């Protein structure tokens, strides 16, 4: 091969590498880029009723979806849903695949270090999903037993701390954890209360019991250091509370009125 023709071949191969070296787009607030795009991309769950699930028509619906839809409406943009899991929602957000996380995400200090949360939009307790008649009521009953949870939730450490003699099973999808209890692979599946109630209703052999932890607040997560965007979301949540949409959605998806102790304050004197 002559040197000249080879050099030509190599310069062709170098072009894709130049694309990689192109500078990243300048940082602007997500609020501006969402309005520019005309689309709000929301990361939501699609296997976790009533927060986010797929209905019989194959549509992704749920409490979180409606919140995202309200926010998109307030901004005057379209809504695009992207399914996420507890394990991949933060990378999806920080990489820019989604503009916000509306996926039953509990506010914790560790998470606050990598993302920013909106004001809490719901406070929810947790439960153990067990087989009816198993006699399991709490951590004490789980000594020597197996507890299931999904990767990306904080239950691994919590269970290890509260019941060191329990074994753990980790799953990627929530329904897989439910299946594991049905199949007897796990004696309990620990997660948020409302979805476990739904799973128990769907399956006569299961029930949701106990109190694995105190009630925790959930928030919408956005990329850090983007106050403009976080403010826009907070204002939308406040509006949603003030105009009654929140109460309506809560009733629709949780079957009950919102807890009287929970308020989204409107920050007006």
């Amino acid at each position, binding site marked *: 091969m002559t040197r000249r023709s080879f050099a030509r071949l190599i310069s062709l191969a170098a072009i894709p590498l130049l694309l990689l070296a192109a500078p*990243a787009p300048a940082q602007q607030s997500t609020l501006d880029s969402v309005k520019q795009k005309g689309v709000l991309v929301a990361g939501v769950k699609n296997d976790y009723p009533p927060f986010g699930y797929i209905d019989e028509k194959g549509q992704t619906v749920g409490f979180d979806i409606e919140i995202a839809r309200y926010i998109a409406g307030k901004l005057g943009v379209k809504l695009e849903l992207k399914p996420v899991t*507890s*394990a991949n929602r*933060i*990378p999806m957000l*920080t990489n820019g695949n989604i503009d916000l996380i509306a996926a039953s995400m509990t506010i914790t200090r*560790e998470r606050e*270090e*990598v993302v920013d949360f909106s004001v809490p939009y719901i406070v929810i307790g947790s439960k153990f999903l067990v087989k009816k008649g198993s006699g399991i009521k709490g951590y004490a009953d789980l000594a020597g037993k197996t507890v299931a949870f999904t*990767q*990306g939730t904080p239950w691994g450490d919590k269970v290890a701390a509260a019941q060191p003699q329990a074994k753990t*099973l*980790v*799953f*990627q999808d929530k329904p*897989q954890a439910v*299946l594991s209890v049905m*199949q*007897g*692979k796990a004696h309990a599946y620990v997660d948020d209360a409302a979805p476990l109630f739904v799973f128990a209703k769907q399956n006569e052999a299961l029930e949701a019991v106990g109190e694995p932890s105190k009630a925790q607040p959930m928030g919408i997560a956005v990329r850090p250091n983007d106050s403009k965007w976080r403010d826009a979301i907070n204002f939308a949540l406040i509006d949603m509370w003030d105009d009654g949409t929140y109460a309506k959605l809560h009733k629709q998806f949780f079957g009950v009125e919102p807890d009287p102790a929970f308020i989204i304050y409107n920050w007006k004197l």
Partner: protein
Amino acid sequence: MNYDFDWGVLIEYRGLLWDGLVATVELSVASLLLSLLIGTLVASGRSFAPALLRPLFTVYVEFFRNVPPIVQFFFWYFGVGLDVVPAAVIGLSAFTGAYVAEVVRSGIGSIPKTQLEAARSQGMTPTQVLTFVILPQAMIRIIPPLSVEFINVIKNSSIAMTIGLTELTFQTQEIEARTFRGFEAATAVTLLYVALAFFIVALSHAVERAARLDLRRG
């Protein structure tokens, strides 16, 4: 690039990485041994079983090598209801066994007819010929392709993370979920896989050299 590198998490979470490495090696070794057994049985059956039974072995090979490992894992774990480790071992062995069967088959086929004729003329039964003459020689010949299969087993063991086996790739995700330092975790795990592959290659060369020495002596 605005990413806060923190390579210290690798030291902090070396326990998880070690657990993952152990799980990967355990699953790979167990599956390799079981798939060697399966592959040898199936290959021998394909070449030497009564003609009516032979298609069964062919069906095994064709079916289990054309179904992705992740599907086989999910079938044994969620479909049949086995526990994580049995499902992972059976799934991986069934899949790899089909490939090993083909490797063993080529090894058997590479043995010259004269070996067979000499053994038969000594009065050995076909089973004795198979066990004492053909298979030993075939096994030594297929050490190089078998080491490739061993590396494949190690790579495919990573798929078991999807059914909750806490092997190396699972630990990458676990460290990411706890520390949000996925880049560092993935780098460490990738280097570990490369190290495992190098180890297999070195091991295979050593075994080859030892085998050839034996042949020369005998």
